[in-house]
């Protein structure tokens, strides 16, 4: 067992550095369903098999064609005529023996007719190159079953993704440039007494130069408070004055020139961020006020039970603040001083987490669930990330497609430039309309390109009309989409495969924040955009 663990650590070393071993565990527990193993489909799956998802199931009723072999790396000449799901599963499986590969030789429509519950079992369903009708049917089944659905499409030199998930909660959102949680403006009792244990004036030179900057800032803040009516230095001028106050504290030698004290320099450098007042962000506050947080039932997911518990903590125990995060940055200090300070924060964080844990326990009890259903470790992780909680709520496909609920504003606003990515979205919707009417995509056969142009134009116009969209689509785009002939160029599929798998990993690991909800890639100009449709 130990040996396999190390082997895995070695194999996955480069990615563990991004999402950690708990992220890896989520991956290994995931079962992903891919519908249609076209080039885009296998590219996506390849990028999920390599990092080691637990299992995949390919649903595909098609037989492998010569065209498939031409753009799909995971289908070979001798698989022509065989079922595409099976052929692709065999080759994808070879990439990673840790992954269990399965296939169903059936079209998604048939499965939806006979056994719609089939799709409920998956962590995530990825639908590739689906006709609009199938997409909408499947979308509604998955929406009702709370299974995330990622729609992916490569159409000529256009890539498209649509995420359909009712609610996706993220504990570890990994924000860039997050501020430290130091509580210097409102130090908790243990921190206060730890700060008091330092006497900057009375200590020797060596200790003075090895006092952590957090203590230095805290000390001078006490001084500042007493002179400024307990108000933090707020504007630039006050912060400069505060820095000057610290600078004066640097020891001087016999001649009166200041010594080099790096810890003081570090304190001065950190003044700007360290003095940010401790407060709860609007985003987290919104979560506290959401209905999921108010009505806890036995069905409530752990995320919301913990959010509620943290809310109770804020209101009853934390004096209006979140649990202490418990980490401090690396800094100039000797080991002993640093570790002591670190322990003050760490112990407070553990205390806070155990108070939250009590709230979790009584909430669970109140709905008749055992307290073990949420682990201590999960609660600790949650408290540590309480300031960065994120919830992504996408609109359903039904909402996007219904004339009543279509997001007209988003479409018209983004059509300002006429050459943006929104026009590509409208074109994709138009070729879908073409498919509904003609049971094929425009320009698939070269001899039809010319006549298809006018047919597609009709589709564009009827789409715009139906939705009451007062925008115009240049003829260039209609020509272009006819020329594409619904081709799936490999290199565009490769791009989409990378992007879609990345979103899938975000969804599965519940780390980082997935896009909401539509993503369009223009391979000619190498540009992308996201829209909320």
């Amino acid at each position, binding site marked *: 067992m130990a040996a396999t663990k190390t082997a895995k650590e070695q*194999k996955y*070393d480069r990615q563990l550095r991004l999402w950690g071993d708990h992220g890896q565990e989520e991956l290994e527990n995931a079962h992903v369903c891919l519908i249609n193993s076209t080039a885009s489909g296998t590219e996506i799956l390849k990028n999920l098999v390599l990092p080691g998802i637990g299992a995949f199931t390919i649903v595909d009723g098609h037989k492998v064609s010569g065209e498939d072999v031409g753009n799909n790396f995971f289908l070979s000449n001798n698989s022509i005529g065989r079922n595409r799901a099976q052929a692709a599963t065999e080759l994808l499986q070879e990439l990673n023996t840790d992954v269990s590969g399965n296939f169903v030789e059936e079209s998604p429509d048939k499965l939806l007719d006979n056994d719609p519950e089939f799709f409920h079992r998956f962590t995530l369903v990825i639908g590739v190159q689906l006709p609009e009708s199938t997409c909408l049917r499947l979308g509604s089944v998955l929406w009702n079953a709370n299974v995330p659905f990622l729609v992916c499409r490569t159409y000529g030199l256009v890539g498209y993704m649509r995420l359909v998930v009712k609610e996706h909660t993220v504990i570890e959102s990994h924000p860039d440039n997050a501020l430290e949680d130091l509580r210097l403006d409102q130090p908790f009792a243990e921190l206060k007494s730890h700060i008091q244990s330092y006497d900057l004036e009375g200590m020797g030179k060596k200790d003075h130069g090895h006092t952590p900057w957090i203590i230095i800032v805290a000390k001078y803040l006490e001084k500042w408070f007493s002179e400024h009516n307990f108000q933090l230095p707020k504007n630039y001028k006050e912060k400069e004055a505060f820095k000057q106050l610290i600078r004066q504290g640097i020891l001087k030698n016999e001649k009166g020139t200041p010594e080099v004290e790096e810890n003081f320099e570090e304190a001065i450098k950190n003044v700007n961020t360290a003095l940010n007042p401790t407060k709860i962000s609007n985003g987290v506050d919104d979560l506290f006020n959401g209905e999921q947080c108010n009505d806890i039932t036995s069905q409530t997911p752990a995320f919301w039970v913990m959010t509620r518990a943290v809310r109770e903590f804020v209101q009853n125990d934390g004096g209006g603040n979140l649990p202490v995060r418990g980490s401090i940055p690396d800094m100039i200090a000797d*080991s002993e001083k640093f570790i002591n300070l670190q322990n003050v924060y760490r112990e407070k964080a553990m205390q806070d987490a155990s108070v939250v844990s009590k709230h979790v326990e009584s909430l669970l009890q109140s709905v008749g669930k055992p307290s073990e259903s949420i682990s201590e470790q999960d609660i600790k992780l949650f408290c540590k990330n309480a300031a960065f909680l994120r919830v992504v709520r996408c609109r359903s496909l039904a909402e996007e497609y219904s004339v009543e609920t279509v997001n007209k504003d988003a479409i018209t606003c983004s059509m300002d430039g006429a050459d943006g990515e929104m026009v590509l979205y409208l074109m994709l919707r138009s070729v879908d309309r073409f498919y509904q009417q003609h049971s094929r995509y425009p320009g698939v056969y070269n001899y039809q390109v010319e006549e298809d142009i006018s047919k597609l134009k009709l589709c564009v116009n009827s789409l715009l009309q139906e939705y009451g969209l007062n925008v115009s689509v240049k003829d260039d*785009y209609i020509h272009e989409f006819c*020329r594409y002939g619904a081709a799936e160029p490999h290199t565009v599929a490769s791009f989409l495969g*990378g992007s879609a*798998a990345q979103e899938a990993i975000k969804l599965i690991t519940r780390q980082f924040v997935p896009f909401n909800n539509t993503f369009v890639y223009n391979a000619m100009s190498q*540009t992308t955009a996201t829209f909320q449709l």
Partner: protein
Amino acid sequence: ALISKGPPYRKLADSLSACRVLVVGAGGIGCELLKNLVLTGFKNIEVIDLDTIDVSNLNRQFLFQKKHVGKSKAQVAKESVLQFCPTANITAYHDSIMNPEYNVEFFRNFMLVMNALDNRAARNHVNRMCLAADIPLIESGTAGYLGQVTVIKKGLTECYECQPKPTQKTFPGCTIRNTPSEPIHCIVWAKYLFNQLFGEEDADQEVSPDTADPELTWNPADTEARATASDQDGDIKRVSTKDWARSTGYDTVKLFNKLFKDDIQYLLTMDKLWKKRKAPLPLDWLEIQKLACPQEVTGTGLKDQQVLGVAGYSQLFSRSVETLRSMLADKGDGAELVWDKDDPPAMDFVTAAANLRMHIFSMNMKSRFDIKSMAGNIIPAIATTNAVIAGLIVLEALKILSGDVEQCRTIFLNKQPNPRKKLLVPCALDPPSANCYVCASKPEVTVKLNVHKTLVLALQDKILKEKFGMVAPDVQIEDGKGTILISSEEGETEANNSKFLSDFGIRHGSRLQVDDFLQDYTLLVNVIHCEDLEKDVEFEVVGDAPDKAPTPPSAQEDKNVANGNKDSAEPSTSSKGDYQTQSFEVSCFVTAVGAIISRSQPPFGPNR
């Protein structure tokens, strides 16, 4: 405008089969790229990579499987692609692209060169070769979720070296040997120690206390005291560290006490060093074993991510020395071990030695996982980013081959859609920089150095090769006589190596003409004599040369982009020969254009 041009995809498909392309590197990007090329219709592909396959490649380099570990990347990549696409004509070279066989003529065989590299030296070189052969080059790199693609065409765009790049961080020898203040100093020390004990000894990688520390004003009165304190040490230094270690039979207790007790006690006698610093605390093997309240573990999760206590690391030190000793013995007389981050005993040794030294110098110890990423310059790497970047490369390739270089872009891949909702940020290609010391019509640089203290060998190795990226420079002094200072022909000017520049009449204002025949590159070097260069600085490039990189907008961004995908091809920066340039930022593409990246990030760029 783009749209009316139509997709190059179909139009080009037929002509692609006749087109010969070179892929430099068969790692993370290289594997994806080879697949994309054959499936886009390229038939004649040559691929070169000198690396072999490692287990940690398997999470993304999908052309390789467990059974291929240890084999040539280029060769296996070729075979795997042929299995799927038997009609492709692929030539694989298990070799360094910097090898002189791959001359300008070789590069002229191709319509297009695509780099999928992980280090700056090779990127510089390929850049010059493509300029010399006038072949378009697509450059790319990834680091974690970030990536970048750009196009280089002689005379039309910036070359790879037009933009100043942040220089690699190096540490002064005395910081490593006497006064480490950051964990990285201890990690570098531990890697030096590995080589001193088990690997190739290198005079630039001394680990014992440095009595020539410029911070010490030598007081003869102290000498005696020091000599007594270092009685044992004095002996050791006369023989090499390795010979001494061997003479003790790699006795772990003796080694431990020398490195972590005696040497530290010796350092303590240099009391000037500790007036303002916290003095180190020597460790004694026996004392620690007595302590032996084993496993004061902090941190949770995998074993690798835990921090053991001093006792734990002293045990690990002893165990790893034992293992390495027997590995060395198994290899026979005169053998050497090469440090490799993916070799468990070598990594254990560095983890233990670095942590013990960190403890001695009052730093917080680090987990094996963290030390590995610092010691091995590990950059996170995943399949998804490489797939995206390789997709972009081929699209740029299609534009170039259809004669649309003007439509090419430098494309940045963000971690997530930026505030303007863009995941990709394409930027127009910049024209060549007029004073680029590589692609300008008559490249010229000015170097500040002390002509009385700079050896000819240092000019060759540190300035011309390391700084200016040449492979085999010839140097002629413009003194009217055309004196040859350095010749790339073996044996011709070796005698000059140990002489100073001033011995050849080089002085303030001298001009040197430097040629690299392989790169077809001539550089004129103006010498400025300077007596007061900063401590540990041997030379400085004046003006628009690489040192003057603009300060990145924020430390965070710098950290994010100042890395490269250590994925492939060229001399692995984690093996021997790289220690002087020990750094977090390996030479790499993303680092190299870090300046460009930071320029185009908000609020600096119009495009994001």
